[in-house]
């Protein structure tokens, strides 16, 4: 970008500046579209809530007031942090176990044939059943809560990573064995880069699924976290607070997506973006 002080004589010809301006416009158009669409949603909500005033349908401004109030008294940040910690723990657990199992099943066909039925069974158990059973068997504690969320996610990670392991190119493995790559090198430079797209897909759908299940777990058997707060405000019939917590958490998850997931993916696929 070429920002010039006003009044400075432009040494370049006018056309070049024109082209720069046009490419700048083209690069910010997507962002402008998103902003316009969000503003539109806000206006729609505001108008609707003003036309039909109701305690069950607060205006954006009322939600904002609650958001600020709970942020200032520290309740919102505290519960957000608790929930986020549970999301992270369940995510790490599900990705680690799910990837290991999925890769093994993808590599060993006989094991896959045996365990496939288990995978299908676990894929189809409703999340709610797993949560309830976990609380009954292991008590209303943190381990049961995080474990239940992870168990919900593990089968889908297994299925995705199994697909990735099946798609491994045997030629890279042969090259690595001829050149006697160490186990660590093989993992780092041959295996994981090939699995990276599958891992990214599993992680992305994983985050989206896990944070929703974490709220349910908190609602059913925890005494803090966003899910618990929403349950509390549901009993108080305080829709503004429910929306405030929801929006705050959605914002946090979007930030994670934008600041962690996407930059990592860009880094991991940097070799793909420069074609010959």
């Amino acid at each position, binding site marked *: 970008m070429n920002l010039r002080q006003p009044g400075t004589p432009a040494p370049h010809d006018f056309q070049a500046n024109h082209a720069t301006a046009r490419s700048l416009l083209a690069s910010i158009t997507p962002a402008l579209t998103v902003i316009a669409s969000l503003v539109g949603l806000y206006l729609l909500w505001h108008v609707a809530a003003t036309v039909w005033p109701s305690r069950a349908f607060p205006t954006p401004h009322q939600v904002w007031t609650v958001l600020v109030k709970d942020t200032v008294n520290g309740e919102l940040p505290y519960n957000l942090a608790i929930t986020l910690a549970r999301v992270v723990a369940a995510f790490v657990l599900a990705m680690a176990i799910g990837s290991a199992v999925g890769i093994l099943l993808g590599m060993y066909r006989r094991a896959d044939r045996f365990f496939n039925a288990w995978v299908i069974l676990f894929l189809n158990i409703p999340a709610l059943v797993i949560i309830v059973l976990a609380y009954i068997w292991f008590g209303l504690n943190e381990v049961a809560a995080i474990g239940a969320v992870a168990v919900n996610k593990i089968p889908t990670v297994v299925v995705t990573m199994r697909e990735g392991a099946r798609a491994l190119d045997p030629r890279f493995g042969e090259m690595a064995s*001829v050149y006697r*790559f160490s186990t660590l090198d093989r993992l780092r*430079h041959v295996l994981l*880069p090939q699995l990276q797209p599958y891992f990214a897909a599993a992680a992305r759908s994983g985050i989206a699924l896990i944070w929703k299940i974490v709220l349910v777990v908190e609602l059913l058997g925890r005494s803090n976290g966003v899910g618990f707060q929403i349950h509390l405000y549901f009993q108080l019939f305080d829709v503004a607070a429910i929306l405030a917590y929801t929006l705050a958490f959605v914002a946090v998850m979007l930030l994670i997506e934008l600041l962690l997931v996407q930059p990592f993916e860009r880094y991991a696929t940097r*070799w793909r973006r420069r074609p010959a």
Partner: protein
Amino acid sequence: MQPVGAAAPLRVDIAEKTFRSSEGVSMTALKDLAFEVRRDEFACLVGPSGCGKTTTLRILLGLDTDFTGSFQLPRNEGSRIAAVFQEPILLPWRTVEQNVRLALPKDMRDTDLTPLFDSLGLSQMRSLYPSELSLGLARRVAVARAFAIEPAMLFLDEPFVSLDEQTAERLRYLVLAVWSARPTTALMVTHNVREALMLSDRIILLSARPAHVQGYFDIRIPRESRSPQVMSDLARSFRQKFPGIMRGELGQP
């Protein structure tokens, strides 16, 4: 027990290699295939396409262990083997230099690769990714990787196919230059007799399936004196020794 570093050749003695399809049909690819490549000799395995040349190479590389018979690879310290495959098989997510360095054994990881990259004309490409290279350049990187580890045995599987003739010829000279700088026992699979006559000390001619050795053709003339005139003389005597080979199945002479 052979003393280390002594003239240990590549000895191959494969009794039989049979493929079985899932329908139970079996196909014998190799039968009583026995040959030897002397130490620091560049040998070419020549034969009609589909006769089992690549199968032989896969067995020698240890990628296929389902066969009867035995073989013995040359040894030196490390006893490393290197291969240039038909396709370059570079890791697309690693740069040219990383691809070469990853193949190096731990104690050689810090070797200065500049002379090798220079001699193969790759010095400008070290930080590029394989997707940014042409096939000819990618092959050169595969050659660099093979020579970088200073192997005791080098296998090449048709490393010049699917290149235009000019690029292939240039690559042949590059391979020759790098190999001459540090000769090592080498076995190259090819169906191009002219290429074999240009590069090798010894041509091992295989029969059609099931493959066995049909004959040897030793070339004692040093490579640098193989002028076009000498080459056509060589081709003539090869044709006399193995009539009907140069044309037909083996492709262009």
